[in-house]
């Protein structure tokens, strides 16, 4: 590899010291009815503004950032709670109506309702 090429690859990867690379996979529960799927994701410490949900065809991606409770004056005596962001990716095997997806956060639990697309709902066919 020539020197020019080396220099080029270096500039392509900017230093992102503040970006955390470790992610936590949160615990989640899925419940379904004929009308909709409900996904409950346990994300303690995440405020409403810290949640990003994206639906790309059949993938539901959830990223959530905690608001840290500790400040500089607090010296840790004992630590268990990780500070990493949450990331969860779920494959949807049923077409959902992506325009009608709703989400809310209460007490650190993110509830996402995914309505099943009309075309995928079970239909009764009457015999003439």
């Amino acid at each position, binding site marked *: 590899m020539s020197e020019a090429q080396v220099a080029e690859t270096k500039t392509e990867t900017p230093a992102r010291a503040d970006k955390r690379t470790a992610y936590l996979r*949160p615990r989640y529960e899925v419940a379904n009815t004929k009308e909709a799927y409900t996904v409950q994701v*346990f994300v303690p410490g*995440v405020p409403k503004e810290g949640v990003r949900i994206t639906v790309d065809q059949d993938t539901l991606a959830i990223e959530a950032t905690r608001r840290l409770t*500790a400040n500089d004056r607090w010296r840790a*005596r004992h630590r*268990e709670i990780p500070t990493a962001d949450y990331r969860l990716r779920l494959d949807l095997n049923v077409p959902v109506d992506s325009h009608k997806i709703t989400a809310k956060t209460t007490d650190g*639990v993110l509830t996402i309702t995914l309505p099943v697309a009309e075309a995928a709902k079970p239909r009764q066919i009457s015999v003439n």
Partner: protein
Amino acid sequence: MHLIKYDNFWNDPFAEMDRLFDRAVSNNRFAGLFDNQFTSGRSFRVDVYDDNNEAYQVVAELPGVAKEDVGIQLENAVLTISAKRKVKQGEQEQSVQFSRSLTIDDDINADKVTAKLEDGILTVSLPKAEARKPQAITVS
């Protein structure tokens, strides 16, 4: 009176080893695999901080727990946090109970203990008693 053997984080000689082990396995690529061991069991994760020598701050992860379902008890030097999470499954409603006891120092001003619950994170502030705070002594 509670007898707590393993939660005494100042006296437990294995606490540091556990912490190092946890840090080694849970921080990067195995994070996802090990997250469930705390959140799905009967326990919950807890942080303890010393707030500028003025108070202890106990932070606990309690997602899905309503304010009225949290119980905090302080007996001598032992802080017990108990919580109840209600789980709705269709018509049925179940509740899961969690409890954890921590040994804090006995220099707490018990009358001034406050707690708040925000986004599933419970923060208990335990101010240190006035007489026990570190004092600067001037030489006369």
